[in-house]
């Protein structure tokens, strides 16, 4: 794609040159578009206990309309998304988190 080494890494033409040099295999292979790999917040921070009382933890996962943020956007892993869901449901019952934005 381009001959400039500065782009290096897996960013640009990594795929084309994969045969002759290792750039393409450098860690995670990045697509031409810059897309950050999503990381499950709970795995990364080692939060085992997703508690319904911890509103500070839950709030980022219920943006404006107070809907639960889907996994495909937040990057949360399946296990933690399930636990998160239960926690949010409970927090809503106790009026710690809104069901909907008014």
């Amino acid at each position, binding site marked *: 794609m381009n001959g400039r080494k500065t782009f290096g890494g897996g960013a640009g033409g990594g795929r084309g040159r994969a045969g002759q040099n290792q750039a393409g295999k450098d860690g995670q292979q990045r697509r031409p578009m810059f897309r950050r790999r999503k990381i499950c917040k709970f795995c990364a921070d080692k939060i085992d206990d997703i508690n319904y009382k911890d509103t500070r933890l839950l709030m980022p996962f219920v943006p404006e309309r107070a809907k639960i943020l889907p996994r495909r956007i937040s990057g949360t892993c399946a296990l933690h998304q399930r636990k998160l869901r239960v926690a949010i449901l409970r927090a809503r*019952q106790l009026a710690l988190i809104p069901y909907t934005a008014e």
Partner: protein
Amino acid sequence: MNRKYELVYIVSPDATDDQVAELHTLIEEIVQRMDGQIEKTENWGRRRLAYEIGRHKEGTYVLELINGSGELLKEIDRRLKVSDLVIRQLAVRVDEVHEIVERTRSKRSEASRRRRVARGLPPDRQPSEGQRGDSDDDRDDRDDRFDMGDRR
């Protein structure tokens, strides 16, 4: 069968402190009568509700950690439902969850110890190792394997 439950109830903001205390003794009585124990009581004080319940916008939250049977919790739930002062309650069983959390935590620390030993480090983090949180520990490992293999 003794289980651990967490009970949270919201008392109407119109209630006086005495009434809140009364409610607590009511629960205490039921718990004692059906041979359970109250492990902890926490009063979160008056909080804003995220949405209106009835016509209330605020409420006094009280949390109780109760050891007891399911029957006991059923009775408490019934009594709270009858009470006009309580506008919302939630009882959750917590012993199993605590156990699972405990297990994953010990498993993780054990695994990180094993990794450290494999790398020739003492099993526990030394204070001189700087401020890297525990979280980088195993993620570093994962990424390093790729990087080192290719570059060196």
